[in-house]
C-alpha cells in the first residue's frame, strides 16, 4: 500500500514537474526533421476524413495499412478520467467529450470516444471505478491499478488484452512492448496478469519514475565545512553538526507513511515493504532482522532530535512544504520535486543548493534498495465492450504519429519488420504562445500547423496535453531516456542545445527558462548521473520479487498487517515502544496471515512465467 502510494505520488509529481518545465515529459526522441519536409507534408496533408486514409499519405504498403481502421458504422467507446479544476482545454468550448483529440478520433476512425465520468483527482477516480465495477457499469476502456485489474479480471469483467494486442497490434506497438519487456526482465505484464493471461497494457513511462533518492542541502554542508555523507556514520556526524547550528531544523526528513526511512534502511540492505529473495525463497522485507537494525538507528536519531518530533502528523506533501521553506537538511523524495517544492526553496532560501546524497553505506560498507515495477496504472478493456479491438487500433494510430519523426525507428521498423509508418515525417514547430505559457504554465501550447495537416494528436499539443487524460500515452522507455541524458549533458555544458533532439532541447530550454532553471538543471544532471548507472547495478538496485496481483490471503489480511507494521515501526522510531516490539511484530505478522501470504507469493513466483 505504502509503495503504491509512493508511486502514485511520484506519478503526480511527474505531471506537476512536466507542467512546470515548459514541456512535458511525454514527447520522446523525435529527431529533428530535415528542412523542407514541412512543405511536403503540408502539401500532401489533405487527408480526407474517410475510410481511404491509407492512400492519402504517400505510399504506405498494404500490409501496414491493415493496422489502421476506419469503422464504416460509427461505434461508441467510453472511458473515464481524472483532471483537476486547473485543467485547461485548448478552447473554451472544449470538454472531455469533445475536443481536438476526440474530434480527430471521430474523423479518422469513426469512433465516438466519450467519458462516463471525470473525477477531480486520482483517488476519487479509483473509487468511482470500483463503484462502476460493483454496479456492473465499467466503461469500455479503463485505467486501473494492479490490484483493481486483478479484482476485475477475477470477476470476468475484462477482455484478454494480450490476445487483442497479438491479433490487432501493429509491429510498432509490439516492438515497444518487447523493448519494455527486455528492460524489466520480462515482468512488464506480470502485475496485470491473472492465471497466465494479461488483462491490461501498462502505461509505459520513463524509468525516471523509479528515481527516488536522498538529497542533502549542499550550502549547509559548506557552512558546516563537511562533505556529502556517504555512510550512515558520516550522516550522523553531519546531522549532529547541523543540529548544533540549527536546533530548530529537521536533520532527516520523515513523513507519516515512513517513506523517508528508506535512506537509513539502504545502509543495512533492508527492504521494508518489498519481497526479496533469501535462500531461494521470496521473503517479506519488513520482517527481516536488517530492518530491526535500521529501526534501532532511527529510534536513536529520533531521540537525538534529528527527526521532526511530530513527523507522524505530516504527510509527504507537508514535509516537502517544510523543505521548500528551508527547514529540512536532508530528505528522501522523488526526482521531480525539482520542479515542485525545491523551486520554492531555491527562491526563498538565500543561497540554498541541493546535492544528491548517495544511498549511505552501512556498517559493512554496502547499501541496497528495492523497488516495485513502476508501470502503473494500466489500461484495460471491459469484457462487455462491443469493439474491444478499437483501443488497439487507437494505439496503433497514436504511436505511429507519436514516433513519426524518429528517423532511426522508422528505418528499423521498415528494415526489420516491414512496417511503413502511416504518418510522414513532419517539421516540428515552436509553440506560438510561448510568452503566455511562461506566465501561466498551465496553459496548453498552440501551434500554427496548417489545419488540414493532422496526425493522431501530434499537433496543437494534443500529444502531451490530452494523451495523459485518455491513457494513450506511449513513452517507450529507452527511447525517452536519451532525451534526459541530453538534458543532463546540456546542463553540464557538455552538449550545446542545437545538437539535442527537438524534445530534449525544448525540455532543456523550458526548464532553463523557469525562475530557478539553473538550479533545476544542475540538480537534474546530478540526479541523472547518480541514477543512470545505479539502475544497472544489480548489487544495489533490486526489483521487487513479487509483481503479481493481490493474493487471497492479502485481501483478507493485508490491511491488518499493514496497520500493524505502520504502528510498530512508527512507535519504535518515536520511542513509545522498545525495539523488542519488532520481534513480537515479526511473530504476529507470521501468525496472522503472513505465513499464508508468503506461501502464496512463492507459489505465484514459481508459477509465473514471462508472457
Amino acid at each position: 500500500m505504502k509503495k503504491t502510494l509512493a508511486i502514485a505520488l511520484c506519478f503526480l509529481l511527474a505531471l506537476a514537474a512536466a507542467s512546470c518545465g515548459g514541456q512535458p515529459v511525454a514527447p520522446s526522441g523525435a529527431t529533428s526533421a530535415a528542412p523542407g519536409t514541412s512543405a511536403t507534408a503540408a502539401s500532401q496533408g489533405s487527408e480526407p476524413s474517410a475510410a481511404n486514409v491509407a492512400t492519402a499519405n504517400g505510399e504506405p504498403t498494404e500490409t501496414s495499412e491493415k493496422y489502421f481502421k476506419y469503422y464504416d458504422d460509427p461505434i461508441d467507446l467510453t472511458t473515464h478520467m481524472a483532471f483537476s479544476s486547473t485543467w485547461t482545454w485548448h478552447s473554451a468550448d472544449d470538454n472531455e467529450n469533445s475536443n481536438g483529440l476526440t474530434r480527430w478520433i471521430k474523423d479518422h476512425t469513426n469512433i465516438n470516444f466519450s467519458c462516463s465520468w471525470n473525477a477531480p483527482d486520482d483517488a476519487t477516480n479509483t473509487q468511482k471505478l470500483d463503484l462502476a465495477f460493483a454496479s456492473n457499469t465499467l466503461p469500455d476502456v479503463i485505467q486501473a491499478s494492479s490490484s483493481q485489474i486483478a479484482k476485475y479480471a477475477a470477476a470476468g469483467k475484462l477482455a484478454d488484452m494480450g490476445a487483442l494486442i497479438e491479433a490487432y497490434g501493429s509491429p510498432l506497438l509490439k516492438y515497444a512492448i518487447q523493448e519494455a519487456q527486455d528492460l524489466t526482465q520480462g515482468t512488464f505484464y506480470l502485475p496485470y496478469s491473472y492465471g497466465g493471461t494479461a488483462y491490461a497494457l501498462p502505461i509505459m513511462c520513463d524509468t525516471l519514475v523509479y528515481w527516488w533518492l536522498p538529497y542533502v542541502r549542499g550550502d549547509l554542508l559548506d557552512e558546516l565545512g563537511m562533505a556529502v555523507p556517504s555512510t550512515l556514520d558520516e550522516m550522523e556526524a553531519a546531522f549532529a553538526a547541523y543540529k548544533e547550528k540549527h536546533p530548530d531544523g529537521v536533520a532527516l526528513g520523515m513523513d507519516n507513511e515512513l517513506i523517508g526511512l528508506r535512506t537509513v534502511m539502504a545502509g543495512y540492505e533492508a527492504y521494508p515493504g518489498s519481497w526479496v529473495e533469501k535462500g531461494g525463497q521470496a521473503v517479506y522485507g519488513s520482517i527481516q532482522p536488517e530492518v530491526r537494525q535500521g529501526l534501532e538507528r532511527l529510534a536513536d536519531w529520533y531521540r537525538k532530535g534529528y527527526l521532526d518530533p511530530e513527523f507522524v502528523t505530516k504527510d509527504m506533501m507537508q514535509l516537502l512544504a517544510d523543505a521548500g521553506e528551508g527547514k529540512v537538511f536532508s530528505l528522501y523524495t522523488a526526482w521531480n520535486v525539482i520542479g515542485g517544492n525545491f523551486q520554492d526553496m531555491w527562491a526563498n532560501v538565500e543561497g540554498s543548493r541541493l546535492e544528491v546524497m548517495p544511498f549511505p553505506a552501512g556498517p559493512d560498507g554496502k547499501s541496497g534498495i528495492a523497488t516495485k515495477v513502476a508501470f502503473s496504472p494500466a489500461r484495460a478493456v471491459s469484457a462487455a465492450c462491443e469493439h474491444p479491438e478499437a483501443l488497439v487500433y487507437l494505439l496503433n494510430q497514436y504511436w505511429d504519429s507519436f514516433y513519426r519523426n524518429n528517423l532511426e525507428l522508422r528505418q528499423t521498423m521498415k528494415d526489420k519488420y516491414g512496417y511503413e509508418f502511416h504518418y510522414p515525417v513532419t517539421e516540428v514547430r515552436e509553440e506560438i504562445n510561448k510568452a503566455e505559457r511562461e506566465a501561466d504554465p498551465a496553459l496548453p501550447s498552440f501551434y500554427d500547423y496548417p489545419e488540414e495537416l493532422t496526425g493522431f494528436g501530434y499537433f496543437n499539443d494534443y500529444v502531451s496535453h490530452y494523451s495523459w487524460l485518455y491513457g494513450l500515452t506511449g513513452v517507450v522507455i529507452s527511447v525517452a531516456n536519451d532525451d534526459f541524458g541530453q538534458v543532463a549533458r546540456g546542463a553540464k555544458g557538455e552538449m550545446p542545445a542545437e545538437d539535442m533532439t527537438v524534445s530534449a532541447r525544448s525540455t532543456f530550454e523550458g526548464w532553463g527558462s523557469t525562475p530557478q532553471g539553473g538550479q533545476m538543471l544542475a540538480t537534474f544532471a546530478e540526479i541523472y548521473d547518480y541514477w543512470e548507472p545505479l539502475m544497472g547495478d544489480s548489487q544495489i538496485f533490486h526489483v521487487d520479487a513479487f509483481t503479481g496481483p493481490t493474493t487471497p490471503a492479502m485481501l483478507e489480511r493485508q490491511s491488518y498487517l499493514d496497520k500493524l507494521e505502520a504502528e510498530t515501526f512508527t512507535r519504535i522510531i518515536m520511542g513509545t515502544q522498545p525495539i523488542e516490539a519488532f520481534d513480537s511484530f515479526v511473530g504476529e505478522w507470521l501468525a496472522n496471515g503472513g505465513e499464508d501470504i508468503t506461501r502464496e507469493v512463492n507459489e505465484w513466483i514459481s508459477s509465473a512465467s514471462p508472457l
Partner: protein
Amino acid sequence: MRANTLDARAAAKGAAAGRRPSDWRLYAMLAAPAIIVFIFSYIPIGGVLIAFQNYSPDKGVLGSEFVGLKWFRVFFAMPDSARIVANTVAIAVGKIACSQLASVVFALLLNEVRGAAYKRSLQTITYFPHFLSWVIIGTVFIDMLSTRGLVNQILGAFGTAPKFFLGDPRLFQPTAVLLETWKEFGWGAIMYLAAISNISPDLYEAATIDGAGRLKQALHVTLPGIRGIALMLAVLALGGILNAGFEQILVLYNPSVYETGDIVDTFIYRYGLLDAQFSMSAAIGLFKSLIGLALMLAANWAAARFSDYRVL
C-alpha cells in the same frame, strides 16, 4: 414533543371516529418523508445479504456464494478487533456524555443571559463550528496541539512539560472527546434552549412567589422541564454508540495512536474503501447497527421503567 404526541393522539381518535375530513392532508404530508425513508433506508436493507456472502459484483447479491458468518468470524479473529470495539465505545461514550453535559450547562447559563443581542451572538458563535468540516478544523488543531503549538505554550506558562496530544496513545482519546465537545456543544444547546422556552412562565412566577432564587429556579424548574428532551437525546445517542465520529478520527489519527485511536469506522474504511472488501464491510456495518439497536431499545426500556418516559 409532548405537543406532537397530543396531536397524534387526537388524530388517532379522530380516525377511529371516522370523521376528520382533514386527515388525508396529514397523511399526504407524511408521504414524502415516508417514501424517502423507504427508498433509502428500507430497500437497501436487502443488501445486508452480502454480509453473509463471498460477494462478487459480477454475480450480484442473489448469485454470490453464501458463506454464513465467515466475515464476522474473520473480524473477531483479528487480533485487534476487541481493541477497536473498545476504543470505539470509549470514544463514543465520552463524546455523548461530554457534549450532552456541556450542552445542558451551556443552555442553562445562556438562559440566564439577559441581553438579547448578546445572547444571540453568543449562540451563533458557539454553534458555528458545527458547520465546519473536520478536514478544516483538524488541520487547525493539528497545528495548535503540536508540541510547539498554542495549547502547549499556554500549558508551558503554568510549568507543564509539552505534551504531544495527537501522538501519545494515552492522550488521544481525551483529546478527540474534548475537540468534539468543543465543536458540537453549541449546536446541541439549541434543542435545550428550545425546550427551555417551552416551559410555562407560570412555573417561574410561582417559584418566585415561593421565594426561589435564580439558582433554585434553574434547578427545580428549568432542569425538570428539559428532562424529557435530555432523555430522548441520550436514548437516541445510544443508538450511535459504535459511531465514534469517523471523519474526526480519520483526520486526527496516525499510526502512533492506532492503539487507542483506531475505531470500527476507520477499520471499515481501510477494508471497505481502500481494499474494496464489500462483504467484510457490510458484516461489520451490520454488527454496528445491531449493537446500536439493542442499546437503544434497552435505554428506552430503562427510561420508561425508571422515569416513566417513553421515547419510542
